[in-house]
């Protein structure tokens, strides 16, 4: 991976990211009370086992209630993703504004990273199954 100076497009993406975080935060009080209206997971209903995305809504509801431990118990990977989305979006505009470097992934396939990502998803799924989410 290499790094480069931010461009105008990078600044636009950073502001778009921040806007998405702001929209999500603003809609949270409206959307979260309605989350119980969402249909339950069809995969879970069929197999009795959670799908890899099960618990995400409950994790977000708990995060919104400042219950990090409860959110992690519902779906650790989704919780980490939501936190990365939020923290990254809040910091991105300032980062590029002050000239912070932007990562450029090296070209070509990354089998090691691909295996790591697959293991991450599978171990998260295993956690959900083991904890009966």
């Amino acid at each position: 991976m290499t790094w480069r100076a931010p461009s105008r497009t990078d600044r636009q993406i950073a502001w778009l990211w921040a806007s998405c975080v702001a929209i999500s935060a603003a809609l949270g009080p409206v959307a979260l009370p309605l989350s119980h209206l969402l249909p339950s997971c069809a995969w879970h209903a069929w197999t009795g086992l959670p799908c890899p995305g099960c618990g995400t809504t409950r994790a977000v509801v708990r995060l919104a209630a400042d219950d990090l431990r409860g959110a992690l118990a519902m779906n650790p990977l989704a919780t980490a993703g939501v936190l990365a989305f939020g923290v990254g979006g809040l910091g991105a505009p300032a980062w590029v504004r002050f000239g912070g470097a932007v990562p450029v992934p090296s070209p070509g396939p990354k089998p090691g990273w691909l295996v790591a990502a697959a293991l991450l998803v599978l171990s998260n799924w295993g956690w959900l199954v083991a904890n009966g989410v």
Partner: protein
Amino acid sequence: MSEIPPNFDPPPPPGPPAPELLPWEEPEAGFGSLFPTIGRFVVRPIESYSRMSLTVDLVRPVAYYVALALFAAIVNQIWGQILWEANMRWLQSLLAAVGQGAMWQQFAPQLVRPGVLQIVLGLVLTPLIYLVVLFVVTGVCHATLVLLGGGRNGFAASLRALSYTGTSSLAVVIPFVGGLLGLVWWLILGIVGLAAAHRTEGWKAALAILLPLVACCLCCIAGAVAFGAAIAQAIQHGGSM
């Protein structure tokens, strides 16, 4: 006969013509250029993606996506008003077909025809929600594409490509099944768009779109299968009446 000046340099031969941009991405393009662009993505999506600029202001493709999200919201509200009773009957029979009749009893009292305030709120909020979904989906698909070695033109290229998948929102003009058709159309446009934006192989673009869906949303796939089965059952039931 005219004389040639001593230091005359012949004009350079004309280079290849500049590639034609999408109407929406041309400099000084107005709102009216939205419609020919939509038409091109409907009729010739592969050619349209090959003309998509990777340097034009990012606001253009994102605005295209938001405009079509707003269109979808308006059409959905119109269908919701016209087909309210039919929708409710259809939902009830669908839930009964998948053995979730109790869910109907639970939620039916909360399902009321939207008033003016709800409609206005829906029209304001829907494009904003679509924007967040676009950003998150692009992030996940682009990360997968990078892992597969296909994201050479960066996140912005993926964002541009997936912004034009907003064309699939037009499917909502078909009542009842427009959403499902729109999803299939979105998948196709997404694969074509990512492949064109990153000049990468189609299979990598297809995996970038489909892998996150499979990995994170088995429930969505199971739901889609159940939905299809329920429709088939409802049609069969209706046909036997």
